[in-house]
């Protein structure tokens, strides 16, 4: 019962603020609504007992990436852009295409639902952070190192791109 209440609260919050993020005229408001969506997703992670991802989502996504977005919006935002048309000319075609895509995924889900299986019998172990750390530094050691190289490349790329004279 409590699980259902938590799920529907966070799902409704995430969906509402996602729709508002896409449709708002002011992109600063859009960024704030995206932050709300990400926080609601963090709540859903917590409800799924993924505590480590809950913390990572809040610290890294909301505290890191979204602050970067807001900074760039402040640097780039022009007041004139508030009075322009916000959607491009292909919006109706794009809307129809998105609905078709969603229907396709829904159809695939409907067909594949039967073969999904009953799921695992065992419950997740309660020490989530310890389990994530064990998996990350044993089975997924090489992807972890590659991810660190990716971050280094992205850091150098961002510095070069944002430099005043290239």
């Amino acid at each position, binding site marked *: 019962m409590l699980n259902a209440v938590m799920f529907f609260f966070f799902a409704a919050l995430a969906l509402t603020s996602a729709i508002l993020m896409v449709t708002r005229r002011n*992109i600063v408001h859009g960024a704030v609504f995206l932050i709300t969506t990400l926080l609601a997703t963090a709540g859903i992670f917590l409800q799924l007992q993924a505590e480590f991802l809950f913390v990572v989502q809040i610290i890294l996504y909301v505290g890191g990436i979204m602050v970067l977005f807001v900074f760039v919006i402040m640097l780039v935002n022009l007041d004139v852009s508030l009075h322009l048309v916000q959607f*491009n000319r292909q919006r109706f075609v794009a809307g129809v295409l998105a609905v078709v895509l969603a229907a396709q995924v829904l159809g695939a889900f409907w067909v594949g639902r039967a073969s999904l299986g009953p799921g695992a019998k065992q419950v*997740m172990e309660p020490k989530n952070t310890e389990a994530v750390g064990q998996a990350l530094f044993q089975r997924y050691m090489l992807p972890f190192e590659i991810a660190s190289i990716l971050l280094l490349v992205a850091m150098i790329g961002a510095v070069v791109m944002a430099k005043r004279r290239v």
Partner: protein
Amino acid sequence: MQAGMPMPIDAYLLLSLALFTIGVVGVLTRRNVIVMLMSIELILNAVNINLVAFSRYWGAVDGQIFAIFIITDAAAEAAVGLGIILAFFRNRQTVLADEMDMLRW
């Protein structure tokens, strides 16, 4: 409903699909490049919900590891993408996608 799951897995998949579709609509219809980039973040976030739900469904932690890698990827993508937007804004004073047509004849 399965013993370990707090909700049926269908609920998480449908929520993820809805968020994904909203993100696709945002990328395809908005003119502002920053909003398009934020919609891409929304899409990646929807995928993360799927991964964590299946991680719980199978009782294995691997899906959460993949979600961590996706968050890393989103951070790298946001840093480089926003750098490109800043560089473009310095040169052309616009952030609208349909005015970025220098390669068009």
